[in-house]
């Protein structure tokens, strides 16, 4: 049943369509919407199962019945289904949270369709094997997220959304330029076809491709909020309603990360550089290794430093997202430098897989933990009307479950065992240690210490201390507590039983580096 590949996307799309005319029947609309979220999770689960059980590990779907590379192809492999799984879990949690967490008028006007269309965009981005189609799903994802960020339409929200929208529109223009250039240079839009072409044609014929790939990379980095493309992040996350912030930080950011991994490691890793700066036999990754490293360091430093001094929980979480994405990019930088031909002293293929595995594990952990933290912040904001630290305090006395969930999420991001975040940190450190890179280790340690510094600060200012008047008189909606608690439990479970997540991430990392497997799966299907 290869139709399973397109199933999650269709579920989300039809849910969006179904919620559109139900605007007058609020309860029905919410029920349909949440049911759609559940169905999406089921569809993704079925797809994960199909890909994992299927011996090849690739499910290829050729839309409109046109064979690759001519039509648009969707590919579900270990890498994309891992990300889809994360998206399904976080999006369902955010959806349940939204039912009470978004003002009713807003839900009626447009929230549910926009939300599901965002999921459509995310799903399409994870699955597509066509660069232009990727652009389309990016647009779908971004268009909906612009609106969701500006949802409350106050002056702050409008400013944040404007910055978000303008910067990403610039990004879209750049992406279009890059895609046009890639088409002109390689004669194809299909990623597998492009990879095969780049691998077979001498480097001298495709010299512009590195620069074009750099343009694409910049756009993905913009989506992922990696320094120096992080400018939109703090304000947008702060302005967005909590479930949207959770989705942006938890999943949309990971779309950028996914795209970087997919394009750099699956497609451009096989492209050879002309002899020059990086010596003979260098591939594009030789160029990206140092670039990623610098960007990772910048992210860890800017995000970590920025978070320490914030006066409100949302701001802290937003800056933290910049810092945490640095931890995802850091092992990718090591992996890129370790690819054979990337100019590393000793190319170590094991390190490449390990680096990507670390990035994927960290992505999943960050997706769960950061969305959990945004939910707690949203629950407080919805109940108290503010998340400024000077108005918080004593939440752990008033609502131990909510506070406990926050604690678990914060510890997961710090990397305390046996939570899922610990293994993320462990793998990042391990990548640094195995690469023998003092810089990587120093940056990771500094970032981790900054993480402890800001989360202990948030905890002591917001959750301990004497309860403020606002906190003492407030009672948090049960659905918020439930969502937070379920995610907290899942973080503990994923940590204690880390094996399956590791297997999935490792398989994902292997899928990312298996260019030939990807090419064979996509192009072989038609021959």
């Amino acid at each position, binding site marked *: *049943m290869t*139709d399973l590949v*397109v199933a999650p996307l*269709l579920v989300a799309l*039809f849910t969006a369509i179904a919620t*559109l005319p139900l*605007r007058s029947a609020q309860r029905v609309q919410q029920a349909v919407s949440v049911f759609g979220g559940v169905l999406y999770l089921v569809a993704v689960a079925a797809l994960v199962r199909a890909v994992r059980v299927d011996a090849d590990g690739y499910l290829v779907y*050729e839309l409109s019945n046109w064979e690759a590379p001519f039509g648009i192809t969707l590919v579900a492999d270990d890498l994309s289904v891992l990300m889809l799984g994360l998206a399904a879990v976080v999006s369902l949690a955010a959806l349940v949270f939204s039912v009470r967490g978004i003002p009713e008028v807003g839900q009626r006007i447009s929230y549910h369709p926009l939300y599901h269309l965002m999921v459509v965009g995310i799903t399409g981005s994870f699955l597509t094997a066509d660069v232009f189609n990727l652009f389309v799903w990016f647009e779908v994802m971004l268009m909906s997220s612009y609106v969701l960020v500006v949802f409350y339409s106050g002056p702050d929200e409008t400013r944040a959304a404007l910055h978000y929208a303008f910067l990403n529109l610039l990004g879209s223009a750049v992406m279009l330029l890059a895609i046009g250039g890639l088409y002109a240079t390689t004669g194809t839009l299909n990623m597998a076809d492009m990879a095969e072409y780049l691998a077979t044609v001498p480097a001298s014929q495709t010299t512009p491709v590195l620069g074009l790939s750099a343009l694409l990379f910049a756009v993905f980095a913009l989506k992922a909020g990696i320094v120096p493309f992080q400018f939109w992040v703090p304000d947008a996350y702060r302005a967005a309603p909590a479930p949207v912030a959770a989705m942006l930080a938890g999943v949309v950011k990971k779309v950028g990360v996914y795209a970087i991994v997919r394009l750099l490691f699956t497609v451009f890793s096989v492209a050879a550089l002309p002899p020059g700066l990086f010596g003979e036999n260098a591939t594009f990754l030789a160029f990206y290794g140092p670039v990623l490293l610098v960007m990772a360091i910048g992210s860890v430093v800017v995000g970590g430093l920025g978070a320490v001094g914030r006066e409100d929980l949302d701001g802290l979480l937003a800056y933290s997202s910049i810092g945490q994405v640095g931890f995802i990019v850091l092992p990718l930088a090591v992996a890129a430098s370790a690819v054979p031909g990337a100019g590393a002293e000793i190319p170590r293929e094991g390190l490449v897989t390990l680096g990507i595995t670390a990035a994927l594990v960290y992505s999943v952990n960050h997706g769960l933990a950061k969305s959990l933290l945004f939910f707690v912040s949203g629950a407080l904001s919805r109940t108290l009307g503010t998340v400024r630290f000077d108005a918080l305090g004593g939440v752990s006395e008033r609502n131990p479950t909510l506070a406990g969930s926050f604690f678990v999420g914060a510890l997961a991001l710090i990397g305390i065992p046996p939570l899922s975040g610990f293994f993320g940190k462990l793998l990042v450190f391990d990548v640094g240690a195995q690469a023998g890179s003092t810089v990587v280790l120093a940056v990771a340690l500094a970032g981790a210490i900054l993480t402890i510094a800001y989360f202990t600060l948030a905890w002591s200012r917001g959750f301990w201390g004497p309860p403020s008047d606002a906190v003492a008189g407030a009672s948090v909606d049960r659905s918020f507590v439930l969502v937070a608690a379920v995610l907290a439990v899942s973080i503990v479970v994923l940590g204690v039983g880390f094996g399956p997540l590791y297997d999935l991430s490792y398989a994902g990392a292997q899928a990312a580096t298996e260019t030939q497997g990807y090419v064979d799966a996509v192009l072989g299907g038609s021959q």
Partner: protein
Amino acid sequence: MSTDTDTTVIARTVVRVVVPVILLTAVALLLQGHNLPGGGFIAGVLTVTAFALVYIVFGREFLQRELLHVDDDGFLGGSIGEYGRTFTFGLALAASSGLAAIVVGELFAGGRYEFITQGVWFVYHVPVYHEIEIPTALFFDLGVYFVVVGALLTILAVVGRE
């Protein structure tokens, strides 16, 4: 407030004549799209310009009451509600026509047709035309048409209201 006195007779008369022509062109573009310049998108935009012309020359009230026969009952109702239903229908149509391919594939071709597989159906021995070509893509294009019409009119109406 009637807008009848605001615009000149010339304008109103010209619009009366031109709007049907525009709509007819739009439909023609929609139908010929598969073989000649045209298609759902351009047809949709053209339809919207026709509505825009009515808006400008006759006013919103006239369009709602006289042409669409709806009352302006609030932000999500009235003409805006109608436009909303239009693009919803368009989306549903486009997506369903894609889904139909899967279903047809399951039923008749052993699951061989993927999402949005299009086909062409030729009907022979039709008087005058001899043969007619009916592309299934037409349904998809129709969806595109309704989305464009509904969405652009929504924007026009909402912004115009302000």
